[in-house]
């Protein structure tokens, strides 16, 4: 219990630190946002007035605390460009990003587990080596490049799937699924090569364990023993790797949204960057970074609860 509280305190601390870093990055860096927004022809008076309007004349710390207070109560401020509430801007776009990350994680696991296991079991054979080499290559491929070629193949050549765009689930579940297949696949392939390399190492370790030998001795085949006893032993540490990969997946999703013109957080974020709409940028980046920290925290806690060996020490 005490350990959980310490972890919770670290988690809260890192949330706070991350928010401070984000706010500082957009507010402290040189570059006067008021003059950027008004263009090069603006008079000094107009710039000064804009600064007051945006509240930029007040001390940094005051503005930070105000912003943070708003965020905690669900108010991310108002856009510098169109004056709309940032919360209202972000909310409808969460859905797309959520699907991408969720299905990207599931897809990469579904790919990585069999591929990594195959590479481990067949590591002394040519086919196993080829699979390992392919995952090494997969590591070097940008997800958005994979996405572009999926478009070329399945949208341009075969015309089986749409090249981009999004249809919400409640409008048409079938269209929704069709539009998500390619982006999710692009994300999954690249993620899977990272995870499959981890799975391969972990499975090789399992193949050398005594409990694996016991499982074989009571009549399991290699694959059966791995499925029944290897997977559950790997899963605990695999969870940590997958959790750490969520950050990479989120970033990958931002770029993938761009490739497939998906209306998620990433594309809204990039629009805000080109408009120099700092309040929107801050808000979306904060949501993304906090999501990463939250997932890492949850993974950490789950790790403690799942591993029966650790559970003993924790109580």
């Amino acid at each position, binding site marked *: 219990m005490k350990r959980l509280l310490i972890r919770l305190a670290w988690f809260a601390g890192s949330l706070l630190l991350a928010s401070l870093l984000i706010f500082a990055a957009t507010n402290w860096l040189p570059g006067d946002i008021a003059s950027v927004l008004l263009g090069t022809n603006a008079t000094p008076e107009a710039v000064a007035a804009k600064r007051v309007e945006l509240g930029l004349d007040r001390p940094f710390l005051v503005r930070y605390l105000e912003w943070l207070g708003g965020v905690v109560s669900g108010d991310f401020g108002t856009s510098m460009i169109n004056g709309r509430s940032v919360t209202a801007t972000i909310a409808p776009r969460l859905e797309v990003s959520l699907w991408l990350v969720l299905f990207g994680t599931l897809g990469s696991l579904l790919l990585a587990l069999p591929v990594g296991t195959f590479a481990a079991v067949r590591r*002394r054979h040519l086919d196993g080596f080829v699979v390992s080499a392919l995952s090494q290559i997969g590591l070097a491929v940008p997800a958005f490049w994979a996405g572009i070629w999926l478009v070329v193949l399945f949208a341009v050549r075969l015309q089986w799937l749409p090249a981009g765009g999004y249809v919400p689930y409640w409008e048409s579940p079938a269209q929704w699924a069709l539009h998500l297949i390619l982006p999710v696949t692009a994300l999954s392939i690249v993620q899977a090569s990272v995870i499959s390399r981890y799975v391969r190492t972990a499975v090789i370790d399992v193949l050398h364990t005594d*409990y694996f*030998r016991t499982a074989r*001795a*009571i*009549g399991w085949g290699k694959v059966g023993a791995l499925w029944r006893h290897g997977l*559950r*032993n790997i899963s605990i540490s695999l969870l940590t790797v997958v959790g750490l990969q969520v950050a990479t997946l989120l970033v990958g999703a931002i770029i993938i949204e761009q490739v497939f013109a998906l209306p998620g957080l990433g594309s809204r974020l990039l629009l805000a960057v080109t408009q120099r709409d700092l309040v929107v940028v801050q808000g979306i980046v904060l949501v993304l970074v906090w999501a990463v920290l939250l997932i890492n925290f949850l993974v950490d806690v789950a790790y403690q609860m799942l591993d*029966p060996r650790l559970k003993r020490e924790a109580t």
Partner: protein
Amino acid sequence: MKLVVDELSVRFGDTLAVDKVSFAVGETERLGIIGASGSGKSVTSLAIAGLLSETARVSGSIKFDGQELVGLRERDYRRLRGNRFSMIFQEPMTALDPTMRVGLQIAEAIALHDRRTGKRLTVEEELQRVGITDPGRVADSFPHQLSGGQRQRAMIAMAIVNKPDLVICDEPTTALDMVVQRNILHVLDDVLTDRAALFISHDLGVVREVCPRVIVMQEGHIVEEGPIDAVIAAPAHDYTARLVAAARGEL
């Protein structure tokens, strides 16, 4: 004869781990194999079970109930393992799956070979047979929640649950302290009655407790063979003499 090993050799790359080893075990006989680590005794037992790593090259013949095991298809081997013959390993902490309750692991051994899918009652009965007084709690425990002796008893229960004809014990008491070791030997002595057993150990004293006959291995060869008391009384080979001298204190 239950098990007939004839000119068995096992080679890993350039090293010959087992060199033309031959022996036989009768229907209800217990044979001890004794030797230092690296003598090839464990490799021999794994060769019989078909659990050597795929880098191993096995030649010669292993006949179990008249069936040739060398070159046997994996699918057929799987039906024998844990069913017609079974194994007990040295370190029960690592030999049991640390993430799975012990009762479930035993039930799994039953379910793999029997459609009755390991009824809970059977698991607890088996645990009782190996001298566990609170089988319900032990079945519900993870390996790390049990004592070394309880773990090894669970391991033995797993091995005999399908009433195998042959049990291969690979250093079953080495990881345990003296008192527990004695108890486990009693349990083994009990459960190995009426079946064939291969008992592998580096400890002459332990082998003497359970095996009337012994073979001595050194560097992949059998250097001596015979009734255990005769071997101890008059070791014919230098190496055996040294083993006997080393064990003298306990005998």
